[in-house]
């Protein structure tokens, strides 16, 4: 009986840990859509990504390979008419989720622009990528769930406008590491704002 209980508790703990790694786009972010002048709401799960991969043309094979192992892609992009339509508090629930198991590898502030890049380490590779980019009238949230080869992403430079050389030196990549003016400490992702 004890062993059954212990096994159950371990299962719950493992599931809980796995759940904790799953990023949910907070309701506060979703509720920004009606205020926005333009919004993009993309949620692609595994089967849809596989389906999309089947429709990639000959010149999109790199993209196909890039998305082949992904579990999901979530993108929320809002363009507002005026400033002040969203605040840091709207993004805070997302940042809170990223405090555990994620590392903020880049943070850049320039005037009203604030861009953060988080990655999740999964064994020896990157298991996920989150970009939070806020400008005065624009907010973008990108969550790529699953093993993503940032070197491969950089190879897409020229195809989708993805710049080569942006890839941070993570996961044993050979690409040029980007200098980081305000890199947050690794491993904790503590918000320093």
């Amino acid at each position: 009986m004890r062993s059954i209980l212990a096994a159950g508790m371990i299962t719950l703990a493992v599931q809980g840990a796995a759940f904790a790694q799953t990023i949910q786009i907070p309701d506060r972010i979703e509720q920004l859509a009606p205020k926005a002048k333009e919004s993009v709401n993309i949620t692609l799960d595994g089967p849809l990504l596989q389906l999309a991969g089947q429709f990639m043309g000959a010149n999109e094979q790199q993209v196909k390979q890039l998305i082949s192992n992904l579990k999901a892609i979530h993108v929320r992009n809002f363009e507002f008419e005026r400033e002040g339509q969203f605040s840091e508090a709207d993004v805070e629930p997302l940042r809170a989720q990223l405090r555990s198991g994620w590392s903020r590898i880049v943070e850049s502030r320039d005037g009203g622009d604030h861009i953060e890049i988080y990655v999740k380490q999964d064994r020896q590779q990157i298991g996920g990528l989150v970009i939070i980019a806020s400008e005065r009238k624009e907010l973008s949230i990108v969550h790529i769930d699953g093993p993503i080869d940032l070197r491969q992403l950089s190879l897409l430079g020229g195809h989708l406008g993805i710049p080569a050389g942006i890839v941070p030196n993570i996961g044993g990549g050979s690409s040029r590491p980007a200098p980081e003016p305000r890199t947050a400490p690794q491993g904790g992702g503590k918000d320093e704002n």
Partner: protein
Amino acid sequence: MKHEPAGIDDDLDPAVEDALRRALRPVDPPPGFADRVIRRASARPSHVTAGGRWLARLATAAALVAAVSAGLWYRAGQEERRRAEGEAAKRQVLLSLEITSTRLRAVQMKINRQGESQQ
């Protein structure tokens, strides 16, 4: 071959009883009746079968054509839906990567600017 109806109630009026006996007495069929019945029975089915078979074949073929057409139509619709979903998913993937790349490019430009100013 004559048969008498039996079991008529004793209380019945004799006149009624007689009338009943006359009415219910077995009557032999007219001569040739059996032959005529057999002839008709054998003639009618052959006439029905000729038209019926043709109609049955036509109905079967029509049902088959309808079933195959419906199947093909359904499959074509499914394929079309799947293709539309796939194309939409592909556009969304490309848009997602475009937004991602735009953001990454913005970071890189800032990094490069700051790197240059430090030099």
